[in-house]
C-alpha cells in the first residue's frame, strides 16, 4: 500500500497516561506498536486491522477509538529516551536515562502478569468532578510482562540517543558524557566507540543504511549566558574511527568550538537553535535530516547532503521546536513532529509540506508530540504526545 499522507485518517488514539510518553516504534509486524515513557515503562499494543466503531464525544479530545495494550516490557528504571526496531521487526531496542540499552525480542517469553492504570489523568478528572481527594479505585488493566533479552551496559551516563542502520545490523547509542558506541546487533558487542567534546552530550545519532557511517549531533545546554559551548554535527567513519566530515565547519568555516562566549554562539545559533536534537539518515544514504529542538521560535528541519555537508534545503516548521524526524522508505518524504502537537510531512524534492496531521492543543504552550514512527508497510503512522495519548493515523491512502 503506497504511502499517501495527503489522504491520512486518524485511526486510533491510545491512552498511556501517568507519565510523558517519550518514544514510539513498530516492531514484530505492522500493527504491533511499542510506546515508552519517562518512568521507564514500555507498553505494547496489537492494533486490530480495522479500528472498532467509534462515535466521538464532542466534549472530549478523544476523536478515535482507544484500545488497551497487551504487554509490558519491564526492566528500565528511568526515562526511556528512544525506541528503534530492526527492519525485520524481530527486535526492539530501547535507550534510557538508566544508562542502559536494552534489546527486546518480539517473540520473547512471557515472564508474568502485571496490573497497570493507564488512564490516570481521566481518573484525576473524575475525582475532581466528584469533589473527592482519592482517585477512583476501579481496577486497571492486566498485561503480560516481558524482560529484555540483552542489556548493553557500556555507557556511564544517560543514554540520550539511539539509531539503527536500515540493514538492521548495527545500532548507535550516545550518552550525556559524549560517549558514542556502535554495537553489532548479532553479537551484542561494541564495534566502535569514541568520545565527543567532554562538555557535550550526544543529543542525536543515526547510522547510514549500510551502518558504516554515523551522523552524530552534540549539544550542551548553556552553562551561563556567557559560557555557551559550541555544538558539533559530524559524520564519522565507523570502520576507521575517524571523523569523515565536520558539517558545522562546512556551514560556518570560521566556526571554532573552543570559543564559548555569547558572541561566538550567535554565529551558529540560527542554524542550530537550541540543539539539533533529532537526526535521520535517508534510506538511499544521500541526505541526512536534522531537526532544531529545545524550545525555539520555529523549529525547522535541515536537509543536508551527506557527501558535502552542504544544506540542500530547510523544510517544515514546528512552533517551539522539533522533537523527532524520520524519512519515508523511498526517501521522498521527511516526517517530523514537534512541540506544536503536529506531524508535518514534506516532500524532499521541493520542500513542499504535503500534510499536517494533528492540531495544536494544550494551551499557550502545546502538548508536544514527542516521537514518530512509521510501520514497515508504511500504512500506519504513530506519534506519542506528552499528555499521554498515542495517535495512530492510517496513511496508506
Amino acid at each position, binding site marked *: 500500500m503506497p504511502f499517501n499522507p495527503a489522504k491520512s485518517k486518524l485511526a486510533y488514539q491510545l491512552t498511556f497516561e501517568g507519565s510523558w510518553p517519550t518514544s514510539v516504534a513498530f516492531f514484530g509486524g505492522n500493527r504491533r506498536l511499542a510506546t515508552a515513557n519517562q518512568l521507564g515503562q514500555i507498553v505494547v499494543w496489537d492494533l486490530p486491522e480495522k479500528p472498532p466503531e467509534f462515535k466521538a464525544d464532542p466534549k472530549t479530545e478523544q476523536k478515535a477509538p482507544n484500545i488497551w495494550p497487551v504487554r509490558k516490557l519491564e526492566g528500565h528504571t*528511568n*526515562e526511556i529516551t528512544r525506541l528503534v526496531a530492526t527492519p525485520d521487526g524481530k527486535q526492539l531496542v530501547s535507550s534510557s*536515562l538508566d544508562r542502559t540499552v536494552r534489546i527486546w525480542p518480539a517473540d520473547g517469553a512471557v515472564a508474568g502478569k502485571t496490573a497497570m492504570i493507564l488512564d490516570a489523568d481521566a481518573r484525576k478528572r473524575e475525582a475532581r468532578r466528584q469533589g473527592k481527594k482519592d482517585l477512583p479505585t476501579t481496577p486497571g488493566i492486566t498485561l503480560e510482562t516481558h524482560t529484555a533479552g540483552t542489556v548493553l551496559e557500556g555507557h556511564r551516563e544517560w543514554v540520550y540517543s539511539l539509531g539503527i542502520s536500515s540493514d538492521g545490523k548495527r545500532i548507535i547509542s550516545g550518552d550525556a558524557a559524549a560517549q558514542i558506541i556502535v554495537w553489532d546487533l548479532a553479537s551484542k558487542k561494541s564495534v566502535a566507540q569514541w568520545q565527543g567534546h567532554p562538555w557535550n552530550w550526544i543529543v542525536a545519532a543515526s547510522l547510514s543504511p549500510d551502518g558504516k557511517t554515523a551522523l552524530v549531533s552534540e549539544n550542551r*545546554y*548553556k552553562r551561563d549566558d*556567557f*559560557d555557551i559551548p559550541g555544538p558539533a554535527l559530524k559524520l564519522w567513519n565507523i570502520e576507521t574511527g575517524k571523523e569523515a566530515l565536520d558539517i558545522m565547519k562546512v556551514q560556518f568555516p570560521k566556526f571554532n568550538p573552543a570559543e564559548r562566549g555569547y558572541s561566538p554562539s550567535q554565529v551558529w545559533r540560527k542554524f542550530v537553535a537550541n540543539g539539533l536534537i533529532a537526526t535521520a539518515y535517508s534510506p538511499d544514504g544521500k541526505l541526512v535530516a536534522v531537526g532544531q529542538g*529545545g524550545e525555539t521560535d520555529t523549529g525547522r528541519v535541515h536537509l543536508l547532503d551527506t557527501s558535502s555537508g552542504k544544506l540542500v534545503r530547510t523544510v517544515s516548521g514546528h512552533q*517551539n521546536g522539533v522533537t523527532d524526524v524520520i524519512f519515508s522508505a523511498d526517501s521522498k518524504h521527511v516526517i517530523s513532529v514537534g512541540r506544536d502537537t503536529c506531524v508535518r510531512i514534506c516532500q524532499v524534492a521541493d520542500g513542499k509540506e504535503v500534510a499536517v496531521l494533528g492540531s495544536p492543543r494544550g494551551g499557550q504552550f502545546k502538548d508536544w508530540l514527542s516521537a514518530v514512527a512509521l510501520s514497515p508497510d508504511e500504512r500506519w503512522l504513530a506519534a506519542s504526545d*506528552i499528555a499521554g495519548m498515542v495517535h495512530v493515523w492510517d496513511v496508506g491512502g
Partner: protein
Amino acid sequence: MNSNSIRSDHLSRRALMKGALATASGGVVMNWGGLTNSSALAAEAKKERKHCILLWMNGGASQFETFDMKPGRPTGGPFRPIDSNAPGIQVCELMPKMARQMDKVAVIRSMRTSEVDHPGGIYLMHTGYRPAANVRFPEIGAIVAKYQGLDGADLPNFVKVSTQGDAGAGFLGPKYQSFGIGSEGGLPTFSVSNTEPARELKRHDLRSFVEDQFAAETKSEVAKMHREAYEAARRLQKTRDAFKIDAEWAKYKDLYGDSEFGKRCLLARKLVESGVAFIEVGQSSYDSHADNFQWHRGLVPPMEHAWAGLMTDLKERGLFDKTLIVWTGEIGRTPQINNRAGRDHYVRCWSTALAGCGIKGGQTYGASDVDGVEVKDNPVTEGDFFATIYKALGIDPTTENFAGVRPVPLAPFTSKVVESLLS
C-alpha cells in the same frame, strides 16, 4: 579655578589629604576595603574580619535538581540522588563534588519567601525586604561592607561579579555602593586610566583643587562624595592585579572547573584573600520554564565544581572559617513539571545553603513534604535567612540604620536567627 590661589597652597592641600588618608579609618573614601596602602590601615586590616561570598543563582535554581530531591514522585524528575559525606544527606547526582563537602554545608529545605517573580525576588533576596516605594533598602553586600569592611584601603568592600541585584547601597549611601565586575571578569573600562601618569597626576591635582574650593564654599556633601569616588578609583589603579586571574587560571582550572563561573569563584577567593568583605558571584540562566532538566544539567555541574573548588581553596588558605558562603537565587522552582518540560517560579517551599564562617555543616534544616509542595517543618522566611547570615558574620541583625528618620533593622522586625545552623 580660584585665580588667587598659588601653587604652594595647592601642594600643601594635597599633602594634607595624604595625611588624612594615612590616618583616617572612616569616611574618607567610599566602600574601599582591601589591600591597604598605609601601615595604619594594614594594622587595622589584620584584625579578625569576616567575609561573605554570595553565590547567586540568577533566575532561581531548582531545589529538586540540587538539594531537595523527590525521586520516584511525580514531581521528582529524572535525576537521582547520591549519598554525601554527611550521614543521611543526599544531593542530586549532578553535584558529586559538593557531595564530598556536605559535612561543611547546611542546607535549608524550608525556605518560604514572599516575592514570586524575578525583580521582586532579586530585591528580596539581596536585601531581606520586599520592594517599597518609600524606602531604598540596602543590599546585604552594602551592609557587610559597612560592618565588616575596612575603610580607606585600596579595594572595594563590596564587589559584584556578573550578578543581577540592583538595590545597591540604598539608604546607606554611595559609600557602600557595589563595585561591579563584568560577566567575563574584566574591570570596567573606567577603572583604567589611559593618560600618562605625570599628566594624570597634574589633572588630578587641578581637579582636587577646584573641588576643594567648591566644597569649602558650598559645604556640599555631593562634592565630598565625588571626591571620595575619584580617590577610590585612583587607588584602584594600584591594585588592579587583584582582579587578574589569567596567570593563575591554568593552575586552578582543575580545582574550580573549566567554566566562567569557576573563574569568577577563583576571583572571589583572591578578593577575600586581599581583604574584600563581600563578593557576589553570579551564574545566569536558571529560569528554566522550559527544558528544566537539560538546563540544570548544563548549569549545575560547572556551578558545583566551582563551589566545591572554592571551599577547598578557602580551607587550604585558612579562610574558610571566616568566610561565609551563601548559595541562593531569588526563587525556587515549582514541583509541577509543565508542558514545556520546565518548572516555573515557586516560593512556598524551596532551598538555600550556607557554609563556612561557623556554620554547622552536615545538616539540613527544615523539610518539605513528600512532593516538595509545602514546608513540612521549620519554615524559614527571607528575614530569618538574613538574620542568620548577619549573625554568622558577627553582625547584630537587630542593628538599626535610618532611612530618613525611620529606624530600619538589618533584618526585618520579627525575623529569627536559626540558631541551630550556627556553631
